[in-house]
């Protein structure tokens, strides 16, 4: 009998549930880093235009 991988979802779904908080924090860090990089790029561009 072939067992679909989804039949084991109960096992690996638990792993994912424990990892959710880590993903949220890492996602927030990534978002903050991207926003800061864009902000500094904008600052550089506006600074360059003024020169």
């Amino acid at each position, binding site marked *: 009998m072939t067992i679909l991988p989804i039949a084991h979802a109960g096992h690996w779904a638990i792993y994912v549930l424990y990892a*959710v*908080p880590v993903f*949220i924090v890492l996602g927030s860090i990534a978002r*903050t*880093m991207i926003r800061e990089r864009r902000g500094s790029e904008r600052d550089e561009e506006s600074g360059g235009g003024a020169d």
Partner: protein
Amino acid sequence: MIDVTLPIAHALVGKSDLPIPEWLFAWGASLVLIVSFVALTLAWQSTRFEEERWRPVSEWISRALVNRVVGFGAGLLSAFLLGLTIYAALKGTEAPDRNFSLTFVFVTFWLGMVVASVLLGDVFRALNPWRAIARAFAGVFRLVAGQSPPAPLVYPERLGRWPAVIGIGAFAWMELVWGQSGFQAVGLVPHDVGIAVIVYSAVTFIGMALFGIEEWTSRGEAFSVYFNMFSRLAPLEVREGRLGVRRWLSGTVGWAAVPGSVALVLLTIGATAFDGAQEGLLKDAISSTFDTVSDSGLAPVTALRLTNSVYFALTIAAVAAIFWGGVAGMHTVRAGIRTGELGRLFAHAFIPIALAYLVAHYFTLVLYQEQAQFTYLLSDPLGEGSNIFGTAGSGIDYGLIGATAVWYVQVAALVVGHVAALVLGHDRALAVYRDPATASRSQYWMLAMMVGFTSLGLFLLSQANQ
């Protein structure tokens, strides 16, 4: 080799009446960490642990607790217990649960001394049997030769705490790989422990003879270094013979500057994580690898130990990868400090995590096995029918604490340990980066590590408890 199931296999029991699923505890714990992080960012704007805050207690209290008589008594007691452990291991019963030595080495000494160190400070310095014996020998040498025994070698600075790392790694390997049951009983008999203690004692005395008693004790003697690491969390410290008090956690500052310190704290976390993982998360993987290794023609016990050794190393490597990944993330906040240096600057913050993992994982083991230690194992240390204190007939009360209460203790230990780590990390970041905004940004990575280690710890416990 006698096949036995190690009696100290962890007495964790299932939890039947938790109000919410276990994974939700991980979410709750993570939320506590995030709230703590925000609170630290808003309210903790200058360093509080970096400056020296040790102050002596009143002289009579110090003299009553720290004096030659107490030191001599502690040394004598520790030397007696070392002798008893070796004697019981070599001459007593081979049944691990009836022999004083196994519970004494792996529970009372290995775990109990951690608790004593965290609460009372570096008590192992007074209770170190090898130091006590070596000092007694040095005293006799002085009487005979009129001078202290010379140390022929200078301890190399770059060696730092590395000998202790090797010693603790070997001890953890002996407990968790050589003697641990994993998915199949292998067993650790008292005789093996007796031989290991003799070998370790010989290595220690050679180290002391070569580099000096105090030098080897503070850098190379594995257990002194290990218990001293935990004693840095304590509010008590003896300096130049005077007892003093300091803030909880503050003794950790500066601890990791010595080479090998980062490895020691990561090894401690990794070894405990492996112990939890081999009972749950890694159980199937170990089983499958064991089958493959066995099929290659190795004896089952050798195949199991080889397999467990690989997963032991992999778990420690995984813990190190999380740590260095987080540190590399911190490095992106501001260049200028090398990643290795950043690791050393923040490694002390992981001592509370090492403690939290130990408490969460071994709480029940200590609770149950200490009942045996101070009743029938004390009355009948060889397990051959003696009844010295009249307690040989006692047993272990496994109903002392409920399974649900145990789970709450484990969760609380992990949360408190990781919040303490956040506090230490934040305080150090303020000292390193000067400006609070940059310090907070660097600690996003510390928060990610803390949330990761908390979730991992709870996940391992939940899997091991199934």
